[in-house]
């Protein structure tokens, strides 16, 4: 699914990722943890193609294709989805219109026809229900006046509608109360189908109680310092991250 080899990246002149290597097979859930400033969010943003994130070395193959050579929208249409840590508010642009444009773009790319407004409405209403978002949110401006939890649920709803192959969740749990966290996790779990892969970036172990990962990686100073199974997350929760320094990473 995804092969990251020796990826180095820079943001505003600072080297953040340093020769990061990571391989994700179809159907796997990988959790990326680590202290603040380790480069967790940078990884997601580089994979999605965010402007200002400069790749200085390495390569990324997504389903065998050179991901870094693609435009932002091409990556999305190919099936990469980044759930934003801070979803953007866009007043004046209706959520519905935006979602339809996104779904149509993905469908066209797959050689499918665009959905009729009626069929799309049905699909969108159903997705909204699954993340417990009131349908009124579909008609409002994109994330306009949404609470933190509503924004994150809107992200998961978009993920459901776009049916990506690789989902990157960038600190989706931050700022969520336990109810919202469970809704988000249930949405993600429902999408685990043995083929779709996930990168779950999080600062806390809590989320991983609900989205159980196959692999856990600790990111420190721009590279993977340690990898393990889901028990590694519990160990981190108990020990914190200070041991990284002790081990001289």
């Amino acid at each position, binding site marked *: 699914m995804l092969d990251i080899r020796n990826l180095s990246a820079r943001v505003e002149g600072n080297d953040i990722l340093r020769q990061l290597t990571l391989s994700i097979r179809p159907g796997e859930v990988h959790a990326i943890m680590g202290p603040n400033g380790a480069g967790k969010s940078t990884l997601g943003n580089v994979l*999605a*193609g*965010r*402007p*200002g994130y400069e790749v200085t070395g390495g390569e990324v193959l997504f389903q065998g294709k050179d991901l870094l050579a693609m*435009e*932002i*929208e091409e*990556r*999305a*249409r190919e099936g990469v*989805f*980044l759930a*934003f840590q801070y*979803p*953007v508010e*866009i*007043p*004046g*642009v209706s959520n519905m*219109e*935006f979602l339809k*444009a*996104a779904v149509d*773009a*993905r469908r066209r*790319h797959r050689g499918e026809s665009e959905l009729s407004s009626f069929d799309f409405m049905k699909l969108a209403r159903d997705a909204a229900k699954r993340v417990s978002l009131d349908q009124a949110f579909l008609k409002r*401006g994109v994330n306009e006046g949404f609470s933190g939890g509503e924004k994150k649920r809107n992200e998961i709803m*978009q993920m459901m509608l*776009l049916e990506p192959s690789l989902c990157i969740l960038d600190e989706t749990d931050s700022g969520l109360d336990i109810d919202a966290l469970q809704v988000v996790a249930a949405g993600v779990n429902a999408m685990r189908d043995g083929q779709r892969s996930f990168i779950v970036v999080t600062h806390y172990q809590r989320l991983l109680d609900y989205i159980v990962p196959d692999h856990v990686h600790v990111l420190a100073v721009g590279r993977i310092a340690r990898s393990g199974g889901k028990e590694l997350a519990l160990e981190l929760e108990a020990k914190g991250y200070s041991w990284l320094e002790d081990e001289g990473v």
Partner: protein
Amino acid sequence: MNELPEAAFQQQVLQLAQGQDVPDWLNSLRLAGAREWREAAWPGRRTELWKYTPLAALRKRQFQQACGTLPVWPRDLPLQVDAIRLVFVNGVFDAAASSPAHAAVVRFSAADAQQQALIARHLGHVATTTRHLFASLSNALVADGVLVHVAKDQALDKPVHIVHVAVPQAEPVVVSPRVLVVMESHAQLELIEQFVSDSQVQNSFVNSLTEIHCGAGAQLRHYRVNLEQEQLLHVGGVHVDLWRDAHYRGFTLAEGSVLKRIDYQINHQAAGASAVLDGIYLPRNQQLLDYHTNVEHKAPHCTTRETFRGIVADEARAVFNGRIHIHPQAQKTLAELNNRTLLTSDRAEIDTKPELEIYADDVKCAHGATVSQLDTTAQFYLRSRGLSETQARSMLSFGFINELLQGIEQPAVREHLHAHLQRLFAESLPVTVTAP
């Protein structure tokens, strides 16, 4: 052709009055207008009201008197609305494209004695020429026009829709569309004024003037849409007198052209009057579009809410000057002026200036102006969901003005503009690199 010297231009345009066929009862207004126009100093760079809007384009054309016969035009009206409709093509009335005559709407040339008296009483009296020089030219050249008269306590069952179509002529012509709205006390009306052109190649100069008298408690919804393109020169003005508790709700939208200048002059003449004015300006290419608004609060307890949004693309230039003048007697005034502009290219330009002059001490007044570029984070967000860069930019531009569009109460106007603008943004928004 080179520019005519200023005085020669003023003189040349006035000569057009010679060839007009005009009813006698309009003569005194014409003479007064001609005198004012002749004696006025030509506005130049040092004239505050015209500082950012050079009139050189006007002096490059040698204008002729319009011939008075109906030009050929495609006859496809871009806005379909069930209304009392009057269509003018280069100022010539097109009866076939218009709806059957209605008692409340009459052309000056067909006015009876009573209506003539009504016109004479109000025409040229709502408009003030001190801040709108071209109103005197309109007075000097007035020959025909439209009177909309709504009697006391009456409401028309349909909106009045006045369409001005510009088509290119062999020789450049001056067109002076003139509208007079007289609303008696507690009258209600919906008025749609629409200016369109059949192609980008145009050579006329449209000097439009609309005067509105809202008697006590009268309520007017007024939509004015200027979609003429590129080569057309347009200087237009709307002057509104609001009497006790009258309410004016205005919406104006304009695309740019070689020269387009639109003035709104709203006068709160008596206590309790209120005005809401929303405006959208959308110049692109190398167009120029200038909005000047001036609200005179001459009485207490009046309110004004003015919101203008603009998107300036390519190498276009926009000017927005919003003045609110609160006279000493206008206590308890509530006034709010807001202007936001989006520049979608590095070479687009806006000159924006809110002007508040407050001479009363117990008032609430607020104004604000912002200039921004398309939000790069929002663009990334949309593209990360698969939208193309063009689609993302067009959607964000549309979002910037959508709030004002959604505020249009008239469904036909709202839907027409919605569709028109979505098309416009999808077609024309260039992809230019802007600094993050």
